[in-house]
């Protein structure tokens, strides 16, 4: 994978945190430019067109969520949010505004690098003519054209809703999808309040597609926030 020329923008008001975040980005062969406020960050994002944005939510001039909203008007660049807030509603607000992933402070460098790698890989995939019709994870292959799902070669039967949900996960790999987002996409905005359906269907997908449904490796729960589809599982 060629990330030699990738440029990351770090928007964070704490210089010491900026320092090690930039250092970790350089270890992932990224160039890093730094901003300490929302205004400066938007300015740099417009001028330098970064491939990735690492954004702190608590900035001195404005809320980080505002940054995401304004950025999303004209750019689809992946955004990784750093949040010192433990309240899930802040993360949900950032994700619903268009952020792709989040890390809760304090975080390890390994974790940060893994997230950055996944995001760069994804933006690479999207710029290279999309992901195509064939998807594979674990021992499962999905053909979006024929609408078939196979596990270890044998066809798996999914209901239309299960299939739609799986497609939403597949086309957004390594991205945190909030309950609201998935409900809107699969059941429609009118059914937002019935999000227990989502949780039940995720359980059914895990039963059908995960090797150990009790310890899902691909369809991962982000507790209190939503779900993440992990193409290449980390950990064991």
């Amino acid at each position, binding site marked *: 994978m060629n990330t030699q020329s990738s440029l990351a923008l770090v928007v964070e008001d704490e210089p*010491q*945190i900026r320092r090690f975040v930039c250092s970790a980005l350089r*270890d992932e062969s990224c160039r890093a430019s730094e901003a300490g406020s929302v205004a400066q960050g938007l300015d740099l994002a417009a001028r330098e067109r970064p491939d990735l944005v690492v954004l702190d939510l608590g900035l001195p001039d404005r809320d980080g969520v505002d940054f995401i909203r304004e950025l999303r008007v004209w750019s689809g660049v992946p955004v990784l949010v750093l949040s010192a807030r433990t309240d899930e509603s802040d993360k949900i607000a950032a994700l619903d505004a268009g952020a792709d992933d989040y890390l809760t*402070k304090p975080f*390890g460098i390994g974790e940060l690098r893994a997230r950055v790698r996944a995001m760069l890989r994804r933006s690479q995939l999207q710029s290279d003519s999309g992901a195509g019709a064939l998807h594979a994870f674990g021992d499962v292959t999905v053909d979006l054209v024929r609408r078939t799902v196979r596990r270890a070669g044998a066809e798996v039967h999914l209901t239309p809703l299960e299939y739609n949900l799986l497609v939403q996960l597949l086309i957004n790999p390594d991205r945190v999808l909030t309950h609201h987002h998935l409900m809107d996409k699969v059941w429609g905005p009118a059914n937002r309040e019935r999000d227990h359906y989502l949780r039940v269907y995720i359980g059914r997908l895990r039963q059908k597609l995960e090797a150990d449904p009790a310890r899902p490796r691909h369809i991962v729960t982000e*507790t209190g926030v939503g779900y993440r589809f992990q193409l290449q599982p980390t950990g064991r």
Partner: protein
Amino acid sequence: MSFAVTLQSASTRRVASYAAAVVACCLTATGAFPLRDHLDLPDIVMLFLLAVFLVATFFGRGPAVVASFLSVALFDYYFDTPHHFVFFGDAEHVLTFAIMLAVGLVTAQLVSRAAAKTDDAWARERETRQLYEAARDMAGAHDVTQILEAAQRYLGNRGLGGNLLVAGDDDRLADHPGGHHVLSIAESGCAGAAYRGGSEFVAADPRDHAGAAIVCFPLRAPTRVRGVLAVTPLDGHTRLADEQYEAVAALASLAALALERLHYAESAQRAELMVADERLRTSVLTSLSHDLRTPLTTLVGLADTLAERRETLPADAAETAGIIRDQAQAMHKLLSDLLDMARLKSASAPLRRDWQPFADVVGSSLRLAENVAPDRHVMIDLAPDLPLIFFDAVLIERVLCNLLDNAFKYARPGARISLAARQSSAHLEVSICNDGSEFPAGRIDSMFDLFVRGANESCIPGAGLGLAICKAIVEAHGGSIRAENRAGGACVRFTLPCLTPPPVTIEDEP
């Protein structure tokens, strides 16, 4: 009305008014005498009639009758020619006298009726003003004492004494300390009956020690009966006059409204105070959390950056960096525990409950726990037909992680650790057990208290917050948690209530 007039005795006033009648007639005769050659007789009769009318207007019936007689006599003697006294001598004078008498009597009657009406209106006006003043005082009252004072002022004006009994939220009537006297048993009985009963008033029976009647008026406000107004006559009277009842009932309804207003003002103030208190607490916790996490983030990040450069650093420097990182992480865990505990202890800690399968939170908890301790493996035993449970996933994940973490910490390496969940009647029962280590006997019940730790020695990291947080979370969900030893191991079991889940219809398989 002048003060001097009221000091005169009634008889003096009566004599004075008869004298005034005589004087008025004499003055009329004296005034008219020089004019008798210029005026016709009927005109002079009119002057005397005017005098009789005025006397009747100002002095009443008796003087008017005297004035009538005197007027006819004077007229007859001085004006009617020839000048001699032939009282009632001819029919003409009889008629004059009759008219004068009639005018005098009718006028006196009309005037006395008007005066009675005026007095009545005055009394009513005074009553209204007093009631209005009581209403105004009560509307501005800041506490029960001021309401009582306003009521007592009003009652005092009518020769009554009063005592206010305010009902608490527990329906107990409290004798207000500012009251005229301490309630006797009879009074308390009467007040209780008025408070509970629906009637307009209740009179005490038997009466109090002085023999005076006590009448208790319930203070009926729109939402509930707020208390009782106990009224006794003062100044040696033994019972309330009939017309007093209506007035006191009006006062009672004013007092009821004032008490109700006071009650709501107080609860609003209390609620406002509580909200402000809670807001302060939350904002302190939030800023504390942010301000402490930022340096910890820097510490963890920088130390981790160093530790990641294993190849380029001397071995012991990289190891030191790793230790700094781990200690900073441990400090963060402690900080989170303390902040969470503070948040959970606050009255309004919100639960974000959703309907969800329990397996979901088990999966995410295992991921977190097993990431921390990669050498441990947990046996999962979830009943296959568990219903949807209504819980806050973030908090229950915290419970499971804390319990798994404990099980890892206190169990021998390689010991079996299991997590099981099953439904038992109206509860989901979750148990996390390990083989090998037991809770210290005799201290099992205190395991869930703050800062209590299983092992006396601090060779195992932790501050004794974990189980206390678990307990707070489980109890906030309406469940219970307990620890127990079983053959060769320790278990923590907790329950979550199984409520009626919303329906889920799954489409048919294709």
